[in-house]
């Protein structure tokens, strides 16, 4: 029996993740029952991954308008932002979580490949890659066996395998492709055990007139298939990404694609050359849902139809059914609509780059996505209905039981943390806080010679050659805050990324977000999603940083439960006419100033997690007015060239921020002597509390008066707390640690764990 004549049973429908009511809608659209190929096509296009059917209503809350926004979120593969002087940037962050959980190397590698294609299909050359990675705890957990012996459980070891695999997969793809991977964030928490998050970010640069649309137009224009041939890898990956991870997921390994960065590099060069040749009408990469998504979306955007013949699609395996060809997620493929009569120009460019290019179809006027096999129609679906009319759901939301409990948690009930020097060292040794050198040294972070602030500072910075502009980018999310209080957590994710960007002296412009949550059918999860989005909205409005695009990844669950809500924010900032500021102290004698207010806020802190193994309490409160004022103040300080260094207070609080300012620059470490007013705070809250909107800056002693005047003119709370001096970090009478000890602990935390072997 062939796939065309196979009877569609309720079992087959449910295996495609299609609900009975969705099946009814499909029959309604087609005016008949679908065949298997058509059912497969609907199942991928109507998966959460492609249609956002569970999140779209909530996403509508996000602000998308701004004077610099040229292409708004959702209109194209990525949003486009004007940076002036005729230049634009296109950027986006996207998840590849499920594939990375099953096959970390290829899962992460193809995540990078996918986001790069999203960017260069728009006509922008990728100049930056970054990523946000989240894993379970790096330290092995221990359990008792039957004879009460303590033995290591598997968890830490499998986390190491995932971590090492993901990092080398990203390195493999980005390094070969030739895009600098300039940093990002790595976060460890038990909620990610077995369900790591791999969010890849890319940013491309183009001249304004070079941006192209993913749109099919012009009846009779030929449709070309470009790039790698189609195989059975990545079959139904979009549907796979739209369900929970289970023990059975290992069997989904064929749904993980295999990447070829060399092919992608050829595609990049060929596509950019092709776009310059003026022969292209529209172009879209084949990412999730492959050939299906690229044909119906380009057709839908252009209000036309497309007819293709799958027999003409280059295939790397024998006997592939139309169903498989349409659903394959083989990597490094593009769909290009060429202007009729200019085929020869396109073909010449394909040939130059030794790329496969086949004419597989043409643009029609009937609005249908028609798929043929050797001339016989195997699927015929109205393109617009398929691409745009997926059912939308507003899920039920409910405040989780843990929320009130966490709010009411009394941190003081935990008692003393013991020796504060030891606490500081323990925090610097926490993999979430520790140096990520082990990670970024595996990435080529300098290729293209634009990276002016190397990974390790608050934001990474690239220059834009031929202009006086630089771009500062930071990826952030404290998912513990988002768990404890999704609204505050959502605000803080935006505010922290903005602070990091402004620490380099750049003005925050716009964000892309990647919303990683659990199963939205659980009302408590949907509540988290909704609250986080509300927080992001309010912060974006306060900072005038609209959302240029992004991605939603739901169903991030393993058998133990959902991951903590993780709305990763990628903030892009613009710096003009000035050199970027870095995080580390520069010179003995420079004056250290703390901008902002220390509050009694230990809830959700890395301190509680690391020292007491407690994830509870009230997340820090973020005052949007205070956060916006801080941004404007920092921009003014940077404009006047007062900032020798600037470092955001984040995980680990003031003590960790000061320690990092001392040690980030390898070989140029400096000490600091600090006295800070404790007011009514406990010692722990003063040193390790994570109150928001605080930045540690250092300035030349000769500028102190002017700097103070400027800060006072903003009526912003500050305190001159000490000097860069000596070879120790001293804070009040509480902390006194030699700088080399701080540095060694912080630098070796991850390297040491990753080089330790386990039986």
């Amino acid at each position: 029996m062939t796939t065309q004549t196979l009877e569609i049973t309720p079992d087959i429908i449910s295996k495609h993740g299609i609900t009975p009511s969705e099946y009814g809608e499909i029959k309604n659209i087609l005016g008949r029952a679908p065949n298997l190929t058509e059912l497969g096509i609907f199942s991928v296009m109507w998966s959460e991954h492609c249609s956002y059917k569970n999140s779209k209503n909530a996403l509508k809350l996000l602000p998308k308008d701004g004077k610099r926004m040229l292409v708004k979120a959702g209109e194209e593969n990525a949003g486009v932002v004007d940076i002036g002087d005729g230049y634009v940037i296109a950027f986006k962050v996207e998840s590849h979580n499920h594939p990375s959980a099953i096959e970390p190397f290829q899962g992460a590698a193809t995540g990078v490949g996918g986001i790069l294609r999203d960017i260069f299909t728009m006509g922008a050359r990728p100049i930056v890659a970054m990523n946000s990675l989240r894993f379970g705890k790096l330290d092995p957990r221990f359990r008792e066996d039957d004879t009460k012996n303590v033995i290591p459980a598997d968890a830490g070891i499998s986390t190491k395998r995932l971590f090492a695999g993901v990092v080398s997969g990203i390195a493999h793809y980005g390094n070969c492709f030739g895009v600098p991977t300039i940093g990002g964030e790595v976060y460890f928490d038990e909620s990610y055990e077995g369900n790591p998050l791999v969010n890849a970010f890319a940013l491309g640069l183009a001249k304004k007139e070079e941006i192209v649309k993913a749109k099919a137009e012009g009846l009779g224009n030929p449709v070309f298939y470009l790039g790698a041939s189609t195989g059975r890898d990545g079959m139904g990956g979009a549907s796979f990404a739209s369900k929970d991870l289970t023990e059975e997921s290992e069997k989904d390994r064929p749904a993980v694609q295999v990447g070829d960065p060399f092919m992608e590099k050829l595609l990049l060069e060929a596509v950019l050359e092709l776009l310059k040749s003026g022969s292209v009408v529209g172009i879209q990469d084949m990412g999730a849902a492959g050939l299906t998504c690229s044909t119906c979306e380009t057709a839908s955007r252009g209000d036309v139809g497309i007819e293709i013949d799958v027999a003409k699609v280059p295939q790397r395996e024998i006997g592939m059914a139309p169903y498989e060809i349409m659903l394959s997620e083989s990597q490094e493929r593009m769909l290009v609509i060429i202007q009729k009569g200019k085929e020869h120009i396109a073909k010449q460019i394909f040939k130059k780059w030794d790329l496969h290019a086949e004419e597989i179809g043409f643009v029609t006027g009937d609005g249908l996505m028609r798929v043929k096999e050797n001339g016989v129609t195997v699927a015929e679906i109205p393109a617009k209905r398929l691409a745009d009319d997926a059912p939308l759901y507003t899920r039920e939301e409910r405040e989780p039981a843990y929320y009130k409990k966490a709010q009411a948690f009394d941190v003081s009930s935990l008692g003393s943390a013991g020796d504060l020097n030891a606490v500081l060292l323990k925090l610097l040794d926490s993999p979430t806080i520790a140096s990520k050198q082990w990670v970024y040294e595996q990435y080529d972070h300098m290729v293209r010679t634009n990276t002016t602030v190397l990974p390790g500072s608050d934001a990474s910075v690239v220059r834009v050659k031929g202009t006086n502009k630089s771009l500062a980018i930071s990826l952030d999310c404290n998912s513990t805050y988002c768990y404890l209080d999704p609204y505050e957590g959502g605000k803080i994710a935006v505010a922290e990324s903005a602070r990091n960007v402004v620490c380099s002296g750049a003005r925050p412009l716009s964000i892309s977000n990647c919303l990683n949550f659990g199963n939205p059918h659980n009302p408590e999860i949907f509540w988290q999603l909704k609250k986080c989005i509300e927080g992001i909205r309010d912060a974006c409005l306060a900072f005038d940083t609209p959302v240029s695009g992004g991605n939603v990844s739901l169903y991030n669950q393993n058998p133990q439960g959902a991951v903590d809500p993780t709305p990763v924010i990628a903030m892009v900032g613009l710096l003009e006419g000035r050199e970027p500021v870095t995080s580390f102290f520069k010179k003995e004698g420079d004056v250290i100033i703390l901008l902002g207010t220390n509050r009694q806020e230990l809830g959700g802190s890395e301190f509680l997690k690391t020292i007491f193994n407690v994830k509870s309490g009230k997340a820090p409160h973020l005052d949007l007015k205070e956060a916006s004022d801080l941004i404007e103040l920092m921009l003014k300080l940077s404009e006047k060239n007062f900032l020798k260094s600037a470092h955001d207070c984040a995980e680990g609080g003031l003590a960790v921020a000061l320690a990092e300012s001392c040690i980030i620059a390898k070989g140029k470490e400096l000490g600091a002597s600090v006295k800070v007013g404790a007011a009514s705070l406990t010692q722990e809250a003063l040193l390790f509390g994570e109150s928001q909107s605080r930045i540690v800056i250092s300035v030349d002693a000769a500028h102190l008066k002017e700097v103070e005047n400027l800060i006072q003119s903003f009526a912003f709370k500050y305190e001159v707390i000490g000097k860069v001096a000596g070879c120790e970090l001293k804070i009040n009478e509480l902390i006194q640690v030699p700088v080399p000890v701080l540095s060694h602990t912080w630098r070796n935390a991850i390297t040491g764990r990753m080089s330790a072997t386990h039986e």
Partner: protein
Amino acid sequence: MKFGVVVFPGSNCDHDCYHVLKHVLQKDTDFVWHKDRDISKYDCIVLPGGFSYGDYLRTGAIAQFSPVMENVYKHAERGKLVIGICNGFQILLEAGLLPGAMLRNRSLKFICKFVDLKVETTNTPFTRKAKKGEILNIPIAHGEGNYFADEETLFELKKNDQIVVKYTENPNGSLEDIAGICNFKRNVFGLMPHPERASEKELGSTDGLKIFQSIVESLN
């Protein structure tokens, strides 16, 4: 004086080398497509870094058969200058224009960071503007930079003063800390570190310029 930067499929430091030669040093520079055969107009050929042909077989192993390489041999035979950086160095080894071979880094990981290099000889067109023993701060970015040669080759390299730059702290397991070597005639130079990434103040070091400026002076 004319420079040609060869573009293999998979080259990715081609733009960076071009940028330094053309925009920083303001020298006449072209990209040379790997299928081009005529390179007679160039005084110095640059084989840039990257992953030529994806480096799926062995680094540089396929690029040596590119049409352009036939004339890179002839160009070198005539005594004209060739510099191979990173993947370019690997290609020169595979092509037999320089002796020895590359192994994977001792750590088996790709390494990208600034390293210190010691100039071992200034008797080359590529280092004449440096001082012997001078330390150059230049980044590396490679997975296979662990230089290896048999004893006989190493003996010859030393005897003929062909070891041009060494690492002060060996990052990759390279034999005798070798970071770059030249041929017997001293007109072909290969090195793993990327001088083009250390040729502008904004990038943290201008030590790499010494190498390009040496070439310019040699060609003057």
